[in-house]
């Protein structure tokens, strides 16, 4: 314990801020996941399987988003189709 520690402790001021920032991100993420229906991952997989019958896309090409607003829910599907030439038919 000495002068050095004193300066060090004033320099490190803000580990609580780091904690707060990390928690805010984490909690927001956890809460977003909480409201989602549990069928979403399976839905995403099955949609992907259907698309793959026709077009060569990979897992990352399909994103499923679920948002809850006051009176309604939005299920958003975003499918990125590859450039021409990847069609399976």
């Amino acid at each position, binding site marked *: *314990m000495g002068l050095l*520690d004193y300066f060090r*402790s004033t320099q*490190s*001021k*803000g*580990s*609580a*801020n780091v*904690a*707060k920032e*990390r*928690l*805010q991100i*984490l*909690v927001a993420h*956890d*809460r977003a996941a*909480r409201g989602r229906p549990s069928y979403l991952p399976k839905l995403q997989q099955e949609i992907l399987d259907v698309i793959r019958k026709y077009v060569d896309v990979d897992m990352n090409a399909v994103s499923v988003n679920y948002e809850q607003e006051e009176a309604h829910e939005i299920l958003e599907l975003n499918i990125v189709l590859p450039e021409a030439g990847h069609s399976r038919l």
Partner: protein
Amino acid sequence: MARIIVITSGKGGVGKTTSAASLAMGLAQRGRRTAVIDFDVGLRNLDLIMGCERRVVYDFVNVINQEATLNQALIRDKRCDHLYVLPASQTRDKDALTREGVARVLDELAQGFEFIVCDSPAGIEHGALMAMYFADDALVVTNPEVSSVRDSDRMLGILSSKSKRAEEGAEPIREYLLLTRYDPLRVDQGDMLSVDDVKEILSLNLIGIIPESKAVLSASNAGIPVILDRDSDAGQAYADMVARYLGEDVPHRFLEAEKKGFLSRLFRG
């Protein structure tokens, strides 16, 4: 109708049992008939914190299995006539807490008590879910520390989806934040989440702030709920919490670091 209060946290070691013991004692001391139940089957501790471990004959699981009546299992507190303890079983498996069995015991308690305090085990296993399922009010005990805050948020999610009130679409459980082991000095130094930080992250009603205090260990050593240590900061903070729970408007205390004198700063770092 009795009010069922669950003391929950998710994370272990944050002060659930200490808080359950002091809340129950505080309510009883104000003349409200209160029962406090230990839901931690297999790892009972409430009896130790309440100082009645040598008077346990029958327990919660005995009553659920109808091997004993509720009156046989309830232990009356020697310091306060209005307070009764229902200890957890030490040996049996956790599945002994059936939902029907717990419902029956709570219904019977509700006949004779005004408040039923449920001391939940840590985690999100069966015992914890049973402790919160029937709750009307929930005290989410949280330390100003990342894992505790995160787990508390997780418990809030479970309270709002897996409780009886949620399943029946009734008025939701009233949720309160109880911040424990709070160290104002470290908050001032920027090394600990402040009350406002935790409130902001969890967006909960704050029912109490219990400062980090040596009195808590001394009280548990002696089997005395710390609220009975009226000279201690933690004891006073719990008394304030009980008053707030009963609707009194009491300002929060123990938020400021004790001002250290020059000499004590020099010698104690």
